[in-house]
């Protein structure tokens, strides 16, 4: 065994140990922290597998935003703790059976993989030149499987609508009660003043470079969302009411432009989401730029949670 191989085995064991730790942790807070560490380790694993695009997404979403969402959920659960009812035997049995079934199904799928993994990678690389993009992942997302990408963005909006629908009637259209993780202190305000200019630049860079190198709308949008949340948590900017027209516009502008470009494909090219040969790159960049903005606002509002108060006039 070569030394790098031993290191990789050790790394895999570490990931598995953290995963087990997440499952057996008794306190919800500990479990969430372990889950965030797990996300970051998985991101490193993706880098080792040369899947830098996936690694960036995993670090931003799995290690960052999902962690924030879960921490918010833990804070909310803590308030409602005290019912203290033990689940009954039928509930335990049902949960156990479901877990066993899911594990068995996953195990079967993983263990019965085909001898040669099916791959479309050679086809993608053969046709990469046609897509006007240098990054094969971006080419798959915006040219070869653009419809999937479009649906993904719509799912994100649906998730936000799902969160908003948890709002009580009296607070509808009001201000999300962003869970505060720290009392705004001078040091947090300092960070929220210092970091956003750099963060916004990095977010835009990630989207821009995504055409040719690892990066893209999702990763860039996540960084933008993080900067926005930082500013809101430090209370430098108020959390906007969800009924504001410009917030609604920002949420839908990305998907709408994407659909518009897709429909344009019927007229100038020959199919939905087909790009005319000479304008492929500008069109893709336009779609990606607006999507970055929409993803940023959507993710920010997802973390901010359902509205729970009406803004004071």
């Amino acid at each position, binding site marked *: 065994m070569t030394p790098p191989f031993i290191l990789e085995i050790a790394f895999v064991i570490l990931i598995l140990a953290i995963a087990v730790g997440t499952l057996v942790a008794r306190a919800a807070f500990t479990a969430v922290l372990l889950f965030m560490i797990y996300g970051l380790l998985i991101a490193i694993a993706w880098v080792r597998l040369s899947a830098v695009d996936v690694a960036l997404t995993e670090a931003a979403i799995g290690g960052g935003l999902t962690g924030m969402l879960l921490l918010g959920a833990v804070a909310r659960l803590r308030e409602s703790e005290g019912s203290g009812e033990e689940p009954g035997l039928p509930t335990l049995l049902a949960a156990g059976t479901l877990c066993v079934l899911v594990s068995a199904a996953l195990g079967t799928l993983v263990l019965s993989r085909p001898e040669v993994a099916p791959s479309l990678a050679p086809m993608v690389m053969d046709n990469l030149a046609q897509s006007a993009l240098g990054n094969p992942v971006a080419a798959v997302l915006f040219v070869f499987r653009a419809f999937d990408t479009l649906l993904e963005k719509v799912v994100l909006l649906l998730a936000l609508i799902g969160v908003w629908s948890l709002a009580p009637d009296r607070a509808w259209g009001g201000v999300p009660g962003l869970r505060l993780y*720290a009392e705004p*202190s001078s*040091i*947090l305000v*300092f*960070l929220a003043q*210092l*970091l956003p200019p750099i963060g916004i630049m990095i977010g835009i860079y990630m989207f821009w470079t995504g055409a040719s190198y690892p990066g893209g709308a999702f990763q860039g949008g996540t960084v933008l969302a993080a900067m926005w949340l930082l500013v809101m948590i430090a209370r430098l900017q108020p959390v906007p009411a969800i009924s504001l027209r410009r917030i609604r516009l920002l949420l839908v502008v990305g998907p709408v432009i994407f659909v518009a470009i897709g429909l344009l494909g019927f007229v100038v090219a020959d199919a939905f989401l087909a790009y005319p040969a000479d304008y492929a790159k500008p069109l893709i960049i336009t779609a990606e730029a607006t999507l970055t903005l929409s993803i940023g606002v959507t993710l920010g509002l997802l973390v901010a949670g359902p509205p729970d108060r009406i803004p004071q006039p």
Partner: protein
Amino acid sequence: MTLTLNIFTIVAVSAGSFFFMAGTIGLLRFPDTMTRLHALTKVDNLGLGLIVFGLLPRAEGPLGALKLLCIWVFVQLSGAIVSQLVAQLARRDGQQR
């Protein structure tokens, strides 16, 4: 020349790893929040600093070196600020008890 640079990289990265290890032991063994934070900041400053320093000759051109330095500065920045926030919280909780 290459040999000197290689030795420099090995020495600096090993020294950095030593501080990572020392910081981890400190985090596990020190008795309270403040001393643990103290152990962690050594990892950010010296540990990562030495590793970045050792990797500088191997960077791809000046831009790559600048990126490495930026990583160090940002980790330091976030480390320092998070330490302050944790320390503030620890002090407040300590006074309440």
